[in-house]
Each structure stands twice: as C-alpha cells, then as structure tokens.
C-alpha cells in the first residue's frame, strides 16, 4: 500500500480551461478519501491524473515515494473502477477478473486461485461463466470492483462507482464498500458528486469546486465547520440556511432579529444555520427567534422538512440559478429557510412558527469572500 500525494497538481485543457488548480492534498497509507464536488469541479480529473489517464500539466503526483507524472498507468500499481464499470463485454466474468493478472504474466494457476478468492469474497462464484451483458447492475458493479481488487493494487481509485445503481442497491453497496475497505485496507480515493455518499463513506472528505480545493477533513468536521459558503451550501441535505446579516459592535442583525455578540469585525456577514439548528420555541425562549411563515412541508417519515420564509435577505450569490429564480419570485425582502423537525412537531402549510436558533450551531461567513469568520 502507499500514500498518494498531490503537490500543486494542475490540469489545464486547451482553451485554456483550468480543470484542476494547484491541488495539494495528502492521502495517507490505507486511508479512504472522498473527493466530492458538483459536476465539473475537477474531481474526476484529479482521479484520472492519479490513474495516469490524464497528463499532469503542472505540479506533481506521487504514489508512495515515487513521482508518477511520467509513469504509464500500468506501472503505477493502481486499479480503477469506472462509473459505467467498463467491463469487457466479450469476455466472461472470469476472464474479466483475470485480464489484468494475465497481462502481468501471472502464472495460470495463480490467476485462477486469485480469481476464485476474489469471486468468493464478492459472491460472484456462480457468475464466472456469464458475460457482462447477462448480469444485473449490482452484479456488474461487483465484477468491476473485483477486477480492480484482484490485482492487489497499491491504490484503489473509484470514479462514481455507485451512481448507476438504483437507490436501494446504492445504500447496500455503500456499506459493502466500507466493509471491503476495512478488510483490505488499501489506500482508496473515491470520487462522487453525492454529498451523502461522501459523508457516510469517507474517513476524510475533500471538497472541490471549480478545480479548487475548498476544504479537507473528517466528514463531521466539514459538516459542523464548513470553511466557506460553498462547502456550507454543498455538504448537508438540505443545505445550510444562509442569511445576510450586519455586524456592528459585536451584535449581528438579521432582519429584525439580533444575535448575541461575538468576536466579529463590523460589516456585512452571512449567517449560516443548519436546518437542525432551528426549533419551534415558546414565549419563554430568550435567544434569537425568527417568525417563519410555513410554505411547504415535506414529511420524510423519521423527520419533517419545513420550508418557509422569514423577513431577512438570503445570501443568493452562491446559489444555483433556478434557486435564485425561485427566491426572487416576488419576495425580495424575504429569505427562504428550511427546518428539520421531528414528525410530531409537523406544522401546517400557511401557519406561522416561532423558531428559536441554537446559537452554538450558528456559523458566520465573511460576506465579501465567503470564508468562515470564526476561528475553529
């Protein structure tokens, strides 16, 4: 096994389009690291650069102690699972699994033994004579993983491996992947655009946006302390509520509501509150309270998502275009806000709710550059 180190790794496509911008990131030996970000953020490019499928424009990538910039893919001792699995359609499962070993002149007996072991581990024994076209999606997925793992690579690369599975199978494969990694302990880099997958799977997650690394850390850390507005909006579903506020003399005003003083420099700030940081409260509550007009209620069974609006300005700059359009729909002076409530506290659409803010869950961001204000 080996560590993987990106050192100022940059990828520029002709145009020029910067797909990956000076990425510096260390993946420890045996670690499960997730690269997550919206589509086009450069995460797949980063992975393909490790695999050797994309040339590195600038900077270096090392596997173990070796800089691999000019090492062809087959000599990097990596294995990759593709989004669409890329199984060889004309070969049986057995041949697919053994292809890499045979190309490396592994003795026939060894190939058979390792293919047998791997197929047993992944429950593929009964499928060895089948071709990919005769397998279900989940089975193909496992064959693809088996083909990569059977070579016992130093580094295991996965490019959105679960995105083609249906929701139920995805959850099942997710836990299976985690167990597999615990068992084999191979250094793994996993690319996904699904932040739920990222949070549940990774030991550490690295959030990318527009080719730039936004934040790296354990999932809970990234969730609790997003480094900037982008991460705050991307990690977590539904995303963090972001409201415009004004800090003056250690107090922050959001619409009519005031937050207690903090070590905040005066000026415009963005106040971030997770949906679970908001709770209906009675008159006795002495913290900051929003009057929420409930608009949409989404019961999810174990919890209820409540979408409403408050008298404040939303931080719209970083939102998706269609979201902005929705927000601007005739209520510029109102901000949408989302709450996560237990099902028994489900409000009626059209009602008004007094919602208190758990102050310790409030995160502040500089309105000018979007960076988190408070020291972590």
């Amino acid at each position, binding site marked *: 096994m080996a560590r993987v180190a990106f050192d100022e790794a940059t990828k520029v496509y002709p145009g020029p389009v910067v797909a990956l911008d000076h990425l510096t990131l260390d993946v420890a030996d045996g670690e499960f690291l997730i690269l997550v970000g919206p589509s086009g953020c450069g995460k797949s490019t980063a992975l393909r650069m490790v695999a*050797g499928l994309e040339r590195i424009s600038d900077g270096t990538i090392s596997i173990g102690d070796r800089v691999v910039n000019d090492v062809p893919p*087959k000599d990097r001792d990596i294995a990759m699972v*593709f989004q669409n699995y*890329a199984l*060889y*359609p004309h070969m049986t499962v057995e041949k*697919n699994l053994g292809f890499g070993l045979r190309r490396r002149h592994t003795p026939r007996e060894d190939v058979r033994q390792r293919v047998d072991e791997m197929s047993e581990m992944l429950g593929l024994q009964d499928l060895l004579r089948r071709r990919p076209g005769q397998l*279900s999606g*989940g089975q193909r997925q496992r064959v693809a993983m088996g083909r990569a793992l059977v070579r016992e690579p130093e580094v295991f690369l996965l490019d959105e491996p679960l995105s083609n599975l249906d929701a139920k199978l995805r959850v099942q494969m997710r836990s299976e992947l985690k167990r597999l990694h615990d068992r084999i302990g191979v250094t793994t880099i996993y690319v996904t655009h699904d932040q739920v997958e990222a949070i549940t799977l990774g030991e550490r997650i690295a959030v990318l946006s527009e080719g730039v690394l936004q934040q790296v850390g354990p999932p809970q850390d990234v969730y609790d302390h997003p480094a900037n507005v982008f991460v705050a909006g991307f990690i977590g579903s539904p995303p963090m509520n972001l409201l415009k506020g004004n800090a003056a003399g250690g107090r922050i005003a959001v619409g009519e509501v005031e937050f207690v003083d903090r070590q905040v420099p005066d000026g415009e700030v963005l106040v971030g509150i997770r949906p679970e940081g908001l709770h209906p409260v009675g008159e006795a509550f002495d913290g900051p309270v929003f009057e929420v007009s409930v608009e949409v209620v989404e019961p999810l069974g174990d919890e209820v998502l409540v979408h409403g609006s408050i008298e404040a300005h939303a931080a719209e700059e970083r939102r998706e275009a269609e979201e902005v359009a929705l927000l601007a729909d005739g209520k510029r002076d109102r901000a949408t806000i989302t709450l996560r409530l237990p099902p028994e506290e489900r409000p009626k659409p059209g009602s008004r709710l007094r919602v208190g803010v758990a102050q310790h869950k409030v995160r502040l961001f500089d309105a000018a550059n979007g960076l988190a204000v408070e020291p972590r």
Partner: protein
Amino acid sequence: MSAVTEAPVELVRPDPRSLAGETGMVERPRRRLLPFDPWHLFLLPLAAVMLLPLLWMVVTSLETEAQTFHFPPILWPGTPQFGNYLDVIRDSAFTRWFWNTTVVTVTVVASNLVLCTLAAYAFARIRFLGRAFIYFVILATLMVPLQVVLIPTFLLVKDLGLLDRLGALVVPNLVNVFGIFLLTQFFRTLPIDLEEAARIDGASRLSILLRIVVPLSLPALATLAVIQFLWTWNDFLWPLVTILTNQDAFTLQLGLATFQGSHQTQWHLVAAANLMSMVPMIVLFLLAQRYFVRGIATQGLKG
C-alpha cells in the same frame, strides 16, 4: 451480500417498442385483418422481382443449348442437364480460374482486414501530428474513380514487373481506403473507457487492439470482409487490363468472358459457370450474417 437479493438477470431484452416510458407511446392492441404483416404484401412481389433473374439463370444452366434459344422462353427444361456443369469444368480451365480468384481474393481480404485495422485504430485513437490532415487526404482519394488512376496504377504495376501475374491483382489492392474509413468510424464509437480500463490493467497498445478493439469490432470487420470479397471476386476491369496473355493467371471473371465468343455464345454453359462462381459469395454471406446483427460493444457498461 447475496446474489439472491439481486434483481433477476435479464437474459432476454424486452422489445423496446413495448416500453411505453422509452418511446412515449403506449402500445395499443392492434386489430389484425391479415395473419401476417401488411408490409409483406409489398415486399413479397419485390422479392420475386429480385429473384427472377437468378431463377432464370438456374433454369438456363439446366437446359440444352437449343432450349436456351427457344421463344417464348422455356420455364422448366423437361430433363435437367446437370451435365452442363461437368462440361464447364472439363472443357474449360474453370478450376484454374477458380483457384486463381480464390488466392487473390483471400489475400486481398486478409491484408485489408489487417492493414485497415491498424491504420484505422491509429486514426481513431492515437494522437499524432497531422492526423486530421492525413485522414482527410486519404479520404479524399475515395472521390477519385478507378478509371482516372487506371493508367498510373498500370504503369506502377508494370514497373514492379507484375504484369500478367496474380501479383498485379493483389498488390494495388492490399489496402482499401474505404476500409480505413469504415473501421475508423466504427472504432470511434467504441467506449473509450474499455481501452482505459485495459491500459490500467496493463495491456499494451497492440494488446488493447487485439484483445479489446478487434473482438468488439467483429460486425464492422465482417462487413468489410464481405464488401472486399465481393469487389475482388467480381472485379473484371482491372484483371482485364493487367492479365494480358497469360491464361494461367486468368481469374473467374476473365474466364467467364471467354465463353462469350464473337460468333456464338453457349448460354447454358455461361449460366452454369456463373452459378458455380457465385457459390463462395453465398456461403460467405451466410457465414458472416450473424456478425451483421447489432454489436455487443456496449454491454459491459452500465446496466
């Protein structure tokens, strides 16, 4: 994990027309007036028109010489003259022509499959300086008709000392631009992921070509083989120009032409010889037919 919880394996593809979601149309139970598709009413007469000349040739090949000139044409000879076929084989150098044609055709088809594959793979997948330009220039030669290059090619073949020899028929046809074009376009449609996966698995370029690309391109290769076979087997003009006097180097098409004398043509023998010369093409077509059906190149991808 257990395979039991998986969705059942789909061995049979559902008819896409029955998938309402895919086409946006709902299949309505149609009331059938006929026990077959109405299209057949149009296709059957068409098929008959296509088959008629062939049938006539078969009939002619079984007639006596006198019957071939009878008017109105005789639709069925009373006693089929199978001896006509023996006459052709015995009285002419038919077996020699057949052998020559086979040698030329097999060589040309084989070399085209190999060389066009190599060239097409390079054009489809390898980046090199001037790739687009060279491809364009090569394609442009497709627009030049044979008659235009007939004389220059003839002179080249003459300088190579190949006139009157089978080599004259083989060498200029070792690689065919159409084949490069056909295969390049096909290779470009193959999923690049498969080749990248093979690269990571440790396969070399040649290994990728032989183990991944070629097996997935059998429909295209079969098409090219059949087309090239037909062209070479039936070629008359080029052999006529380059095989001048050496009867031992005659191909079937040249040989068949000798049946047509300036004073008299023995049509029953012409028909018999022609039918025999068609057999390899029919066999080849039947053999290659199963490769023409849709390729399987995308079956390893997402489900």
